[in-house]
């Protein structure tokens, strides 16, 4: 890969004593969908506003497609399409008027703006309600109108801040699909800030975990898991429907006695067993011998959930 299209180095932002962003380094390359994942208040929106030149950085360097947004905010806003969280429109105007206004603010003539707005409204599936007031739009329609607005300037980079907040499951699916399609067809670089890990997992090529103003981990999901759980043991989850406490106690004792087992935890009819074996035969053998019926046995793999909770458990202190 060549030079990154978004390059943040040692970015700081503090409000009084509170550090919203604390030494952020981030590189995003052209054509990537990058997921910026973090809980509310982690500093995602602040970072985005600094990248747009809408907020001043306390320290650090930002480079967006060769432009320094702190010095040249107007230029950078030509390159970035930004969909803020909780986007607000002029509710008294129709979707088309809202879109045309943004188009004209981006230097299009009235006719160009009209043509482009029409094409984009079709693209996001709003052409039937284009002349209704935005006040009557549903949340999902507004979000799609917002996406159309970011696209009217032909951006190189799309920044979406919590784009799926408040959408119903089908809405989320359609929206994410639309983003993926845009990324593929136009080589758009997408930065998606969210706290919805599953959506991020679904569409993003790379993910950055952002906690309390710091990027604690970065990479694709597998890399993150490897980084995180390299030192921990394989874990097996065993469920049982047995209510015989004696037998369960016996099984538990035998499991602990087993050499390869590191720890056993029994809770709500589930055993969580950490072991060093490369297969689960010895464990299954114990359940057979103690006559504890097993309803399921599962080798635990690590998804984004675990990664997320692993980091955010620490951060909540």
């Amino acid at each position, binding site marked *: 890969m060549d030079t990154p299209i978004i390059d943040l180095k040692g970015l700081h932002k503090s409000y009084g004593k509170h550090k919203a962003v604390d030494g952020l380094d981030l590189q995003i390359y052209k054509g990537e969908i990058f997921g910026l994942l973090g809980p509310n208040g982690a500093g995602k929106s602040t970072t985005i506003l600094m990248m747009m030149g809408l907020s001043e950085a306390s320290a650090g360097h930002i480079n967006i497609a060769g432009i320094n947004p702190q010095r040249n905010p107007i230029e950078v806003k030509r390159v970035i399409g930004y969909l803020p969280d*909780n986007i607000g429109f002029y509710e008294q105007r129709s979707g088309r008027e809202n879109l045309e206004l943004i188009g004209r603010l981006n230097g299009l003539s009235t006719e160009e703006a009209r043509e482009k707005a029409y094409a984009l409204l079709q693209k996001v599936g709003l052409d039937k309600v284009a002349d209704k007031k935005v006040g009557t739009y549903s949340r999902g329609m507004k979000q799609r109108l917002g996406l159309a607005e970011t696209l009217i300037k032909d951006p190189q980079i799309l920044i979406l801040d919590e784009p799926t907040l408040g959408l119903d499951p089908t809405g989320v699916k359609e929206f994410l699909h639309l983003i993926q399609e845009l990324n593929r067809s136009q080589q758009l670089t997408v930065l998606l800030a969210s706290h919805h890990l599953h959506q991020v997992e679904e569409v993003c090529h790379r993910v950055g975990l952002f906690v309390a103003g710091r990027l604690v981990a970065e990479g694709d999901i597998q890399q993150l898991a490897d980084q995180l759980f390299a030192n921990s043991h394989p874990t097996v989850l065993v469920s049982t429907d047995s209510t015989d406490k004696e037998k369960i106690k016996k099984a538990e004792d035998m499991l602990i006695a087993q050499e390869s087992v590191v720890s056993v935890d029994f809770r709500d009819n589930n055993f969580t067993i950490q072991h060093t074996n490369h297969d689960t035969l010895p464990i299954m053998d114990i359940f057979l011998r103690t006559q504890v019926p097993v309803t399921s046995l599962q080798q635990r793999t690590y998804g984004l959930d675990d990664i997320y909770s692993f980091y955010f458990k620490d951060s909540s202190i």
Partner: protein
Amino acid sequence: MKKYFDLKSMRVLVDKEISDYIRSKKFIILLLIVLCTSVASLYSSLSTLRNNVPSPDDAQASFFFLRVFTHSDGTLPPFHVFVSFLGPLLGIAMGFDAINSEYNGRSLTRILAQPIARDSVLNAKFLGALTILFSIFTMLIGLTLGLAIFWTGLTPSLQECLRLFLFLIVTVAYVGFWLNLSLLFSVTWRHPATSALVSIAIWLFFMVFYPMIISVIAKSMAPGMYASNQEIQAFQKFILSIMRLAPNQLYEDGTIVLLMPNVRSLSPLSMEQIQGAIPSALPVWESVKVVWTQVTALVALTVACFACSYFIFMRREIRA
């Protein structure tokens, strides 16, 4: 070379502001109130003046068109008094939610994410509102002139036109001051209700309570029966200057001098000053000189308010 002032996007924003105003209901209602009262007052003064139209060679005829705006038959106050009273309400209605409603509607971030300078949003609000005000008052004055010409057959002289034009400028500056004051509050406070109430409180204070306070002060400070001429003069001067702290007083001073060419001073004149003066109308430029301070003060107040809003707005964090 870098363009620091982007005229094109500015135009788009001003367009948007103007169409916003024209469509907004609160503006239409207030406009109707202002228009109804103004038209009523102008009509009543016109209809009484119409019955005793001066002949063209009469000395009075030379300023007939100015008298339409200051004349009152006693039932309704003249036009400029109405404007000094209701104009502020119009200005406040146009400004009080200009910025904070965009904050609350979260449309501000969206507009600022476009390639425009931050100040152009505020500038557009100001310019858009001023354009509207200018059109309203031009229309009112123009209509009245037209009706007066139609009814009397007289035509306004160049001097009258000039004076009316200056009157228009002063009126827009006066309403513009209230507009900018409420614009400042709309930048300062997040809630439109707060900024509206504070603006209206200030308006009420200057309209109703300020004259009362002045009369209390005047009563306590009034020189005795046997006070010297100088003492009385000093007292009058003092009362006049504190009265002129109110913007509506500045406006009324300005309009009176501009619309009544015979007025040659706004403060008491001594016998020495009057002696030898020829009781004739002042040329336009001389009238302008008389009200120069008042008009400058009005414009300065407007500019100061706008500068404060500009400063606060540019420093404000955009995060909603």
